[in-house]
């Protein structure tokens, strides 16, 4: 959820952490429960050095104070070349230049300018104006979904809702939406260097080039047209438009799905919370904030590189070393949140790192919370009647170090035939 990035280098550099941890981080157990191993690391210390074979050291930060400090530290940069490193893996076939101008791949002063140009039209008012459309999409999806005996709250609901939302925001024609759902999912599944799905980068680049050209000729009332519009002042150039459109699409979809999915799975197992929300729906936004703290879809921050030697916690991070903040571990740091492993929507979640922190704070935070809020409102009456349609052990979790979240959530109505309730 934090820091949208399309820069493949980031994905590629999220290597396993140390040899002993390597297998655990790759295992399905870790995907389903990263909290235990990361909690053990956090107990041991704030910053952990790992030396993946054939790569420069990576430091994993597991405590809140050091994690927040790292996210705010301007010496930890996104651009590897600023840390004396090669440019790193990039999507090939000519897309690399076209994908490097997003918010997450750049540092000040470039980042400052890009962020300003995107934030200018991406206003709270624009986000709020999407609410009726999101509500309509949620109703339609629910009505269609419940016609089936068993259905999947993620593929049949959260995925469609998030796709509809980001497409509304960007102004992507309804006919193209299924394509986008597939793209977002595929992007976030790429976690290994060399496995980058180059066709995907190419397809997205070509798609947006053509859409931008169309919007230039016939502007609509959407964010893409607003980003294109020539106000006579500074504006995004062609590379930047493609980078922005692609990164907003991708980061606007998959993390949003995971947020809704994680929230629904939490609530399915907590009928008392569902009841409390039904009695007082104004608690929904606070509940979502607690989901963001407790079950953040952003497992780790995107990678940063030390542009100079940086003292952090009890270590010195050398110039060129990579740094990852475990947002999940920081959000469950007992030094920051009391009883961190308790899901408690009434708590003060201020400072949670689910959206990151500092200049790279997720630009879509408000939108993500809005769509999750609408999703919960729409499904709340349904939740008490839903049971898992598969054994808990059959649930699948998002692989890799980048995202934490349930991949599918098959359910059926209570009282319907077959199996024992999950």
């Amino acid at each position, binding site marked *: 959820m934090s820091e949208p990035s399309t820069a493949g280098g980031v994905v590629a550099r999220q290597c396993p952490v140390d040899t002993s941890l390597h297998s655990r981080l790759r295992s399905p157990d870790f995907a389903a429960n990263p909290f235990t191993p990361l909690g053990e690391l956090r107990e041991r210390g704030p910053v952990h050095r790992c030396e993946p074979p054939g790569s420069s050291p990576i430091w994993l930060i597991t405590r809140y104070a050091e994690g927040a400090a790292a996210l705010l530290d301007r010496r930890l940069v996104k651009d590897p070349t600023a840390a004396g490193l090669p440019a790193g893996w990039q999507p090939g076939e*000519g897309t690399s230049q*076209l994908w490097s101008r997003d918010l997450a791949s750049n540092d000040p002063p470039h980042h400052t300018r890009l962020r300003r140009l995107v934030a200018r039209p991406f206003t709270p008012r624009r986000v709020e104006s999407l609410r009726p459309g999101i509500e309509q999409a949620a109703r339609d999806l629910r009505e269609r979904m419940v016609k089936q005996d068993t259905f999947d709250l993620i593929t049949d609901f959260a995925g469609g809702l998030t796709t509809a939302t980001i497409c509304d925001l960007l102004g992507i024609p309804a006919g193209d939406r299924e394509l986008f759902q597939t793209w977002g999912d595929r992007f976030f599944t790429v976690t290994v260097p060399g496995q980058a799905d180059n066709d995907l980068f*190419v397809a997205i680049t070509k798609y947006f*080039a*053509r859409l*931008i*050209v169309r919007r230039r000729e016939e502007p609509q009332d959407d964010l893409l047209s607003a980003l294109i519009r020539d106000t006579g002042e500074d504006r995004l150039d062609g590379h930047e*438009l*493609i980078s922005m459109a692609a990164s907003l699409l991708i980061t606007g979809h998959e993390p949003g799905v995971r947020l809704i999915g994680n929230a629904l799975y939490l609530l399915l197992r907590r009928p008392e919370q569902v009841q409390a929300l039904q009695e007082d729906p104004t608690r929904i936004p606070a509940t979502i904030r607690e989901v963001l703290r407790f079950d953040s879809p952003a497992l780790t921050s995107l990678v940063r590189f030390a542009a100079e030697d940086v003292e952090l916690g009890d270590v010195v991070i050398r110039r060129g070393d990579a740094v990852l903040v475990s947002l999940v571990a920081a959000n469950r740091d007992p030094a920051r949140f009391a009883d961190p492993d308790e899901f408690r929507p009434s708590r003060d979640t201020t400072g949670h790192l689910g959206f990151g922190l500092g200049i790279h704070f997720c630009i879509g935070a408000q939108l993500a919370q809005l769509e999750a809020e609408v999703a919960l409102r729409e499904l709340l009456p349904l939740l008490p009647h839903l049971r898992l349609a598969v054994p808990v052990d059959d649930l699948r979790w998002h692989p890799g170090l980048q995202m934490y979240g349930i991949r599918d959530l098959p359910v059926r109505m209570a009282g319907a035939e077959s199996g024992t309730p999950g």
Partner: protein
Amino acid sequence: MSTRNEARGRQQVDAEQLRGWLVARAARYVRMDAADVDCDLALSQYGMDSVSAVAIAVDLEDTFGVVLDVDTLWKYPTVNQVVEMLLSLRPGVRDQREELR
């Protein structure tokens, strides 16, 4: 001999049509008069940016059924270079010339 001449003649016509199509499309994207486009000048000199450059590659794909890299217009920056590349790439291009009109 006559066959070869005929083939060359057809090729020339095709090149002309391709060129005309490309000039028209480029002129539209950079918002200038097609008559002012010099086919031996890099289109970037007319202010064509990366969005339009990729869009032209996609337009070419759709029109001629070829598959092109997104950076085609970087590798072949002038209209004439693109035409030459397309003709060498795919003899079948001329069979689809109807789509040019």
